[in-house]
């Protein structure tokens, strides 16, 4: 009721391959989710007119080389801030998955090279 060392090695590299696939699938879904969320930062502009002060909110984001300032009605600011915060979370998770994928790719390519060399001997 035991597996040989060669089989164990196969199990480990298979598991790493599955983990890579899982991370890639998750990354794809995270990137899709993040693309549906707004990007940028909210800035505030105060304008004075006669004796009164008026606050306007803008969503500042970049499209290529252009910086866009889009006016946001006050009632939409809170909801937008939540979405921007959520986007940050998604982006952080995306970075973490990209690092993991790079790490797994490195291990798996080393493993392939090792097996390639040993089979040539």
């Amino acid at each position, binding site marked *: 009721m035991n597996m040989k060392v060669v089989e164990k090695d196969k199990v480990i590299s298979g598991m790493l391959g599955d983990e890579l696939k899982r991370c890639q699938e*998750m990354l*794809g879904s995270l990137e899709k989710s993040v693309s549906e969320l707004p990007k940028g930062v909210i800035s505030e502009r105060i304008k004075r007119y006669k004796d009164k002060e008026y606050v306007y909110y803008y969503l500042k984001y970049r499209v290529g080389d252009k910086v866009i300032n889009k006016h946001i009605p006050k009632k939409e600011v809170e909801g937008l801030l939540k979405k921007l915060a959520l986007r940050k979370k*998604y982006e952080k*998770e995306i970075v973490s998955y990209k690092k993991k994928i790079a790490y797994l790719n490195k291990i798996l390519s080393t493993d392939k090279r090792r097996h390639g060399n040993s089979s040539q001997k």
Partner: protein
Amino acid sequence: MEIAVKNKDIFPEAIQELLHALYSAGFFEEAMLVGSWVMPLYQEVFGLSYALRTLDIDFAVKFAYTEKDKKADLEKIIIDLGYIPVLMQSGIRKFTRENFTVEFVAHRKGSRGERIVSIRKWNITASPLPFIDILLSYPFTANFGNFKLRAPLPEAFFVHKLITAQRRPGESKRDKDLEQCSIIAYQLNNDRLKTVVESLKLSKKTQKTLRASCEVIDFPPQRLGFQ
């Protein structure tokens, strides 16, 4: 069957936190931890040593079409722990945090039908998979003091893996399943194993599957009650 766990740190802190939150919501009254994360539990409780595990944390949950009572909003509970919900291409909703992924599975009756089931009482979606009822029918409770956790008995986990290993589309997953079986095989309780196998109505195809898995790990099929 309830077993007090002496070493409280068998799970990383992030997972302990998740398990504690799910226990507080009453989730383990009718659900359980499954997948490779039961292995640290088996190591602690049953002395089965197996170090490999993936970063996806799977939970098996009971599913009925006629759910009336709402239990708890698990989505909110998990998001409050810092996880983010992710809609996968399959339509299933998973949760992720620092590469850990939380997902749910439910028992699937009959042939392939729906790809997702919505468990409204917990506000989650689950992937329906065959033979999950084997796991859900034979639980044990691990008592960590500040929380309790349900998981399948090793005998149920073993039989489930023997069956599903041969149905896996990928060779690597089948190898992993059978390797786990080969480790568990050392510590199986014969009476409990017999109870699990006898409770199942196994088709000829499934019996053949079981025998094939037994052969790979060199496990005598007679211990499953086969001739």
